[in-house]
């Protein structure tokens, strides 16, 4: 089978994700990577809806819907309960959007990371509050259209460097990934599965309606994000440094990435140059692959 992926599915069809949803595809493969013995903890986010209304569920593994600000706290509890009951082999995975991670769930995340709780925190970042109708979050990039930033997000507010913040908590493992780079995606989930302690995975997940792209472009666009350096694929290596896990053969300008989405259509040439400079600055920090 392709990339030695299991044919067992833990995501059911009939889920309520939009056509071409990056978060749904990411969940499908995250669970294939982690396997049957996984408990998923979901705060308020797109996935609260995608998972289906009571009494249905889109997952064939246990899923806990928890309040917006509490994903990391609840996951800590689930982990401790599992240990108490002797189920050390069960994975706990938080599956939160950027709102529940960068903004509302931030202190719970910081607390769990600080206590080095043994679970995997996955933030599927679609760069705004998509579930409630595309309001900006602190993960929204500069210049992007949302309903609360109709002229594009102000350049005074850059996308929060969450990787940098979580890194400051000394996690066991940390990485960025996106499902349009499947080998890299699976390798990182495998490392997260094997790591002991707090693990943070930052996934870029395309949102066709929120990013104003065609549903069939949702893989292409996240590949452009990586190839342009807007979303570098990195991980914490054994020496405790962030390292690129993939370096594009021929990097493309961020302009190509930005022009692939209508949420960036009002950017001026100066804006694009600024974003190009920001991307280059960010990438300089990481060790070469």
């Amino acid at each position: 089978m392709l990339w030695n992926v299991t044919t067992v599915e833990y995501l059911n069809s009939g889920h309520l994700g939009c056509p071409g949803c990056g978060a749904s595809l990411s969940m499908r493969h995250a669970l294939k990577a982690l396997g049957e013995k996984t408990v998923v903890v979901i705060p308020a986010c797109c996935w609260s809806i995608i998972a289906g209304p009571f009494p249905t569920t889109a997952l064939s593994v246990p899923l806990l819907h928890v309040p917006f600000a509490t994903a990391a706290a609840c996951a800590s509890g689930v982990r401790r309960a599992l240990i108490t009951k002797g189920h050390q082999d069960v994975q706990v995975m938080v599956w939160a959007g950027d709102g529940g991670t960068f903004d509302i769930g931030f202190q719970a995340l910081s607390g769990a990371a600080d206590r080095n709780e043994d679970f995997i925190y996955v933030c599927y970042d679609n760069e705004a509050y998509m579930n409630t109708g595309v309001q900006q979050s602190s993960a929204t990039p500069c210049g992007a259209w949302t309903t609360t930033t109709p002229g594009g997000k102000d350049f005074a507010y850059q996308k929060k460097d969450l990787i940098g913040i979580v890194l400051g908590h000394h996690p066991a493992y940390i990485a960025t990934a996106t499902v349009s780079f499947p080998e890299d995606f699976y390798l990182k989930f495998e490392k997260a599965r094997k790591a002991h302690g707090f693990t943070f995975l930052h996934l870029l997940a395309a949102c066709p309606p929120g990013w104003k792209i065609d549903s069939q472009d949702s893989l292409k666009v996240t590949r452009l994000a990586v190839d342009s350096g807007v979303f570098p694929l990195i991980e914490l290596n054994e020496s405790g440094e962030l390292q690129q896990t993939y370096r594009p053969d021929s990097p493309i300008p961020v302009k190509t990435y930005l022009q692939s989405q209508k949420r960036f259509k009002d950017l001026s040439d100066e804006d694009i140059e600024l974003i190009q400079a920001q991307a280059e600055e960010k990438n300089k920090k990481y060790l070469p692959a």
Partner: protein
Amino acid sequence: MEIINQDSLVAPGDLNEAPISMTTTEGNLTGSWKFFSPCLQEKVSPCRTACPIQNNIAEYMYFLNQGEKDRALEILRESNPLPAITGRVCPRFCQQECNRLQLDQGVLIGSVERFLGDYGLKIPYPAPEKKRSERVAVVGSGPAGLAAAYFLARAGIQVTVYEKEAEPGGLLRWGIPEYRLPKDVLRQELDNLINSFNIGLECRQDMTSEKIEALSSDYQAVFCAPGLGASILPREFAGYDRVRQGLDLLYDLQQGRIPEGRRFAVIGGGNVAVDAARSLLRYGKEVEIIYRRTYAEMPAYPDEKRHLSEEGIPVQEQSLVTDITPHKGALRLSVSQAVKSEQGIVPGPVGSEQEVDVLVLAVGQTEHLRIEPKERLFVGGDLQLGASSVVEAMATGRQGATAILQQLDPEQEAPELPAPEPAAVNLTYVPRKKPLLLRETALEERVSGFVETDPGFSEDEAQLAAARCLSCGKCTACGLCWFFCPDVSIALETEADPPGVTIDSEHCKGCGLCAFVCPRGVIRMEED
């Protein structure tokens, strides 16, 4: 993490009091959301479109890759009755269009075809499904005539082939040197074809226009592909014993008649010139090519030109022989630099002299028979096309056979050749593979005899080459669409024949990711 003291835990409440979803979302028929539906539609691969006889390369590569050699051969023979020959001498139009060229290395289609062709040399063709009473004559047993004979015989027609020489093959036999096409391979391929279909063969039949006319009253139809039997002789070279025509020379060499003399010059830049030069080298002659344009402009096939250079045969580019004078049993050539002018290529002022024992002309062929196509008389091969490749000649043979069958049986619809709709492929998720190396016979061994320059592929190499083929336009159930479906709505049928995928239209939301990722361009989104 330390185990928490059991006693310190608050006893949990009854879990059954909390709402728990226990049924799946599969009851949501999300397929009703969609505006577009993915449709599986096989396309024509660009290699097939480029192939004059439209070999179904994507299909036979797929079956070879599955280890089904016989099935691969059967598919190849659908369109090509001479694969061991074309696998050696075809200029490989297909390879220039291979989608894989954009990724790492194009598929070495010709070498795989040759492997399959060699495998088929001893495997007879299946008998035609029905025998028919009509008889058709074919004039000329070159590639066009043989292809016509094959497509007619396969339809059950009784075919008789008339050949001028003592043995069949036409230019294949006496125009192509053994280092490109060994006689043994030619004999086996032709014997197998002729014997499988019981094709009548009348050799040593020198046809004239009148005789061909006569044939058309004896047979229901005649397909005429006698080739271009006359070599062009520019006036200034006429009347000299030591001036030879390239094809005549090749013919003599094939018969074992080696011309006297040590120093040879060949005028021309096509395959005949290169074949003549390389053959003479193998008989220990000193040989050079004189060509009026640049080396890059020589119309000989690129591989042949490369071999020419490797074997150390010099090419005097942009040179014209303006005059020849016999001199002490040799020929003295006046060679001028060729200059492009409005009148074409003309001799420039600068000239030099050189002496050769024999001057070989390879400046083109022209017809030796004038035949006008008419009812029941069809024309093909080089006589129709002008000098062309083996495979292009074969294409005319197939067209001729199709036209004859149509005329014999106007009710029957002509077999529809696939429309050249290119398969738009996405190579993003195709893993790169290490390029394959083409082995070639060592230079010393090559120039000292007529061993094949290209030793061909072993079975393992052919398999590796076939494994590189994406089978553009054909679903192989590779699984990429399944992998990238966010709605778990694609099932793979790897065991099916042909393999494929099924789409759960009750749940598919029509996002189109399957169509985007498909590396073979088989899925198309259609508006509901």
